[in-house]
């Protein structure tokens, strides 16, 4: 029967196998696309190879300098994403840090919260 005493085999549940999986994940879509390329029916017509433009001949180019209205959000996002990356180790070792860890992290999050409120008041969270 199964080896009851064995610990989780690190190589087989850890990064090495994750690496193999990632390679598989990249390979699979290309495999699928290759299969599709081989088996698919090709029936080319001139109009089929035009970009969809709601039934009109295509005009203009979509590769333009597009006005992304949310770049201020994007800046805030980077801030918060780094914050959460900081918070995860804190959360894991919370029991060891005790009250001191709690208070310090509160101060840290408080400052960030104030930052959000500041951005909000300044109108950065308006969709413009």
């Amino acid at each position: 029967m199964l080896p009851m005493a064995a610990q989780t085999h690190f190589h087989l549940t850890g990064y090495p196998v994750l690496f193999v999986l990632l390679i598989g994940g990249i390979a699979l879509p290309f495999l699928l696309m290759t299969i599709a390329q081989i088996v698919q029916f090709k029936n080319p017509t001139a109009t089929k190879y035009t970009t969809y433009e709601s039934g009109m001949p295509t005009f203009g180019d979509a590769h333009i300098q597009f006005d992304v209205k949310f770049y201020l959000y994007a800046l805030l996002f980077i801030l918060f994403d780094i914050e959460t990356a900081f918070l995860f180790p804190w959360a894991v070792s919370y029991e060891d840090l005790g009250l001191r860890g709690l208070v310090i992290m509160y101060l840290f999050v408080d400052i960030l919260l104030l930052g959000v409120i500041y951005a909000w008041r300044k109108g950065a969270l308006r969709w413009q």
Partner: protein
Amino acid sequence: MNPYNLPNWFVWLHAQLGFNVADPGVQVLLVLAWGVTLFTLIAVVAKAAVVFMVLMERKVLAWVTQRKGPNRVGPFGLLQTLADGVKLLFKEDVMTPQQDKFLFTLAPAIFIFPVFVLFAFVPFTDFLFGVALPVGALLVFALSSISVIGMVLAGWASNNKYSLLGGMRSAAQAISYEIPLVLAVLAVVLFAGSMNLLDIVEAQRGPLGPLSWYWFYITPLAFIVFLISSIAEVNRIPFDLPEAESELVSGYNTEYSGMKFAMFFLAEYAALFVMCALTVVFFFGGYNSLLAGVALPWGGTMEATLISTPMIPMDGEMMPLGVWLQQTLHVPNLSWLLDQLEKISWMVLKIYTFIFFAMWLRGTLPRLKPDQLMGFSWKFLIPLSLINLFAVGVQRFWAYPNNSLDTLFNSITTHIPFLIVWAVIVFGGVGVFCMLMSRQLNAKTRKRFAAPSA
């Protein structure tokens, strides 16, 4: 944690076959072999899950809108999705000369690849899982956010205006909803004391059954925030702005056809499955039984009942299932097998419950606007999840320090002041934010009534 699992079993199998599993060279080969096996397994399971989900979605939506749904291909339309898949495989993969060929091909690949890897993280039982890393919770979200790059790339490479808008919207959505999602999980990690998904599931095993799962055990706020954000992360209605068909035709995948479109389609449903699985893992006790801690009417646990109750006719008399299994199938460790079966049943049941919830939402709600979408996240969910983090910190520190509700209930009198503080913080926070939101709404309404009229 359970000392044995599927990877270990794989090693054990090879040791039985005569390999020297301690040899580094053999180990490299083992990793490769196991990786390929696991990936094949995942690809099959994921596709089977998606095939079922697509049919389920069509059936559920048909039910919601009082139609019949697919019922022609196979019994109950079971083969409908398969037929659709075969059709998509044979469809021509149209690529126009205006498109960026390299990125156009790369986009669906980027979109789909993290989803399959994510399947390996989901602990279906404590035996059946692929990857168990100490940074699991963080890695899961790191991987899932890669998909967005695929969407943005698809939008850009298509050289189509609707696709571009869809791609941009997907970026906006991703940057808005990832933070509340991760902050909600932070509360879970804080309680479980580990980022390993298996540990998180095990930590939710408690005397109160479903009540010791984190949706209730820590503030329900975290669960609500996570649920909303997860629906947004997988671009489901009401958050399906990247492919809003009423304005963007089909959004970022407008130009895609054939297999490439099928890959977007597949990955979307697989991502929904993974997201629902993660919801279950983080907040609904993973594979833990819903009936744990609930006394069955006939006494004893479900497992003990199955082992000892005579229910199978054999040799002219009723035998317990356990005896029957041992005698006919020669399953040696019956208790373990039943346990595994029960766990995987609960896991799948819970996952599909959440999938059903997402489908139900699709049948019910309209779509948001991009400004509302981002406003909802930044002005409501993120502050709420930060407040929740404060509350959870206090709760973890004082309310039940030893990660057990028993402590809480045994010494409830000593913790009353802290519970009050905690309640004030949580519910006060919710109250303040609801007030803020309603004030906003009121301002809007006031503006509305001040609008010019005849």
